[in-house]
């Protein structure tokens, strides 16, 4: 069963999941293309929003779905990426220096490595401490660290504090025009594909085998001669980096970054998206993100109380449909 994640051979089980995955990709690409042809910019940006949120969930899915680490603080990395993009754009626009010392840039290709590196370092620190705990303590301590970073971001009055920071001019990418909605969509889509490909390869590698075992039976892993702690820490850091990348893109999409990107509510939402789609399923985050953003946009258009329905759907999934949406669509409901 786990084998099926790592190879695309057409056994009866796997075929269905591959087809579902392909379908999801086709849908998510066709919508913005058709929308552009019909001059409906709104739907292009909506698709981009879905892609980016899916990517944030891909990051979490790596730690949670494949590694079994229930991190309730991943919004911290999402926000971190966002703030790096935002602060860079801010200083580049104003012509000022970050901390009065360092010039920033409005080039995405320069901003992203900084965001990734920053997320990696913070995740290393948080992970090193948190992974010494287990179970509910781990959940709580990841939450606590995220809260710390949340309150820290509120204190950044230079960058808007609680009100957040506007990005007047979207950062630039080397190819194409980042202000063109379809170009930006393509950019984000490519980033999502890359993160999915990376996830896929890593899960199928030696590292992935160790990570899977860490999740299924930690004792067996240790008895087999591999330190669970080190494996988990690396997985945690990689997962943080992917989510941070998504955060940087999110900031540029919205032209805005604020502390709510780091709230624990947001962390909960990312977990919900992973679970809605199917924990540990490679394309789960895409299905989950589509469902979530559609609920948010269309149901939210009817009523401010749309999260009531999100809650009901989530409850239903947890109690009755444990394989998430992908599980439902492929007919095998299994829990991660």
């Amino acid at each position, binding site marked *: 069963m786990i084998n099926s994640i790592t190879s695309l051979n057409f056994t009866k089980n796997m075929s269905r999941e591959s087809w579902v995955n392909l379908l999801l990709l086709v849908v998510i690409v066709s919508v913005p293309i058709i929308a552009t042809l019909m001059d409906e910019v709104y739907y292009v940006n909506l698709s981009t929003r879905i892609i980016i949120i899916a990517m944030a969930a891909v990051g979490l899915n790596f730690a*949670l779905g494949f590694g079994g680490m*229930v991190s*309730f603080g991943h919004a911290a990395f999402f926000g971190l990426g966002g703030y790096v993009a935002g602060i860079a754009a801010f200083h580049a626009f104003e012509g000022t220096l970050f901390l009065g010392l360092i010039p920033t840039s409005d080039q995405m290709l320069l901003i992203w490595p900084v965001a990734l590196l920053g997320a990696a370092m913070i995740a290393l620190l948080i992970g090193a*401490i948190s992974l*010494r*705990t287990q*179970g*509910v*303590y781990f*959940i*709580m*301590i990841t*939450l*606590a*660290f995220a*809260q*710390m970073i949340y*309150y*820290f971001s*509120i*204190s950044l*009055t230079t960058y808007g*504090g609680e009100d957040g920071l506007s990005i007047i001019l979207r950062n630039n990418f080397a190819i194409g025009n980042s202000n063109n909605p379809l170009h930006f969509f393509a950019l984000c889509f490519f980033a999502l594909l890359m993160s999915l490909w990376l996830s896929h390869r890593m899960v199928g590698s030696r590292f992935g085998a160790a990570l899977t075992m860490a999740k299924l039976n930690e004792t067996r892993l240790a008895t087999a001669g591999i330190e669970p702690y080190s494996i988990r820490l690396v997985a945690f850091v990689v997962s943080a980096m992917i989510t941070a990348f998504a955060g940087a893109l999110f900031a540029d999409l919205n032209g805005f970054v604020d502390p709510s990107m780091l709230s*624990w*509510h947001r962390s*909960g939402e990312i*977990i*919900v998206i992973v*679970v809605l789609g199917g*924990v540990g399923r490679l394309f789960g985050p895409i299905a989950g993100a589509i469902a979530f953003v559609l609920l948010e946009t269309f149901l939210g258009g009817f009523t*401010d*109380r749309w*999260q*009531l329905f*999100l*809650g*009901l759907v*989530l*409850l239903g999934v*947890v*109690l009755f449909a444990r394989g998430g949406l992908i599980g439902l669509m492929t007919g095998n409901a299994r829990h991660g």
Partner: protein
Amino acid sequence: MTLALTLEQLLNGIQFGIMLFLMASGLTLIFGVMGLINLAHGSLYMVGAFVCAYVTGITGSFWLGLLAGALGAAIMGVIVEVLVIRRLYQRDHLDQVLATFALILILSEGTALVFGSQPLWLDIPSVLKGSIELGSVVYPVYRILIIIVGVLVALGLYLLISRTRIGMKIRAGENDREMIGALGVNISVLYTFVFAVGAALAGLAGSLVGALQSVEVGMGEPVLILAFVVIVIGGIGSIKGALIGAMLVGIVDTLGRVLLPSFFQWFMEPSAAASVGSALASMLIYLLMAIILAIKPKGLFPAND
């Protein structure tokens, strides 16, 4: 800072700690006995406050409102336990987190549907509005009431757990869930009872604080997080740990919020000092938790060591 001011803030810290204890004791009891993480606890706090405000509004009696708040939260707790929570006892923590997170959404939005998104009016009854002198400190009567209520609750819990038969079943249940079932204890009823007690305490806390601050949707969430910090610091499953942890968090947080901005004023201008100080004060509790967990990964007084 004068002595009077320090004492006043210390009392505020104790009062805050008491309120956290009311929340944390329920949480830790539920986790200790049923092994369940309940994120919806903050929503029960909110439900209590809303019921209290509503009943106080129509009867004019704050005391009735308080009672109604605790009872209302308990009833909601029973409903939630029977419909949802009892399916989660055998599940892993992720499922529990998700399901109770879903409950937060449902209860919050549900409350907004019923009562609207504006805060409800709840005021301290006039008989409790004054202040009294305690030595050099002039302290609000109402806050003293909260402290007294908290002490009474702590005492009551202690007596319940150590002196009654139900308490005995609870303690046995904390140690060995399978065994008490084998001994003929009705586990379903026991669990529902424990959940209801936890809910009632949360509802009581919400009602008491509602009169001090405001009664609005989402009021339980910041408190919930702090309550979790308290039980993690104190040791999950330990009521003693919840009490000590709550006092620690309440006092450190309150004093931190007062002292840190003042501290930063030594080398920053007032507005910068205020924001940096209050940001750091908010982070302080989490820092404390991280340090404690680094040294004692299961908290200060873990129930099963």
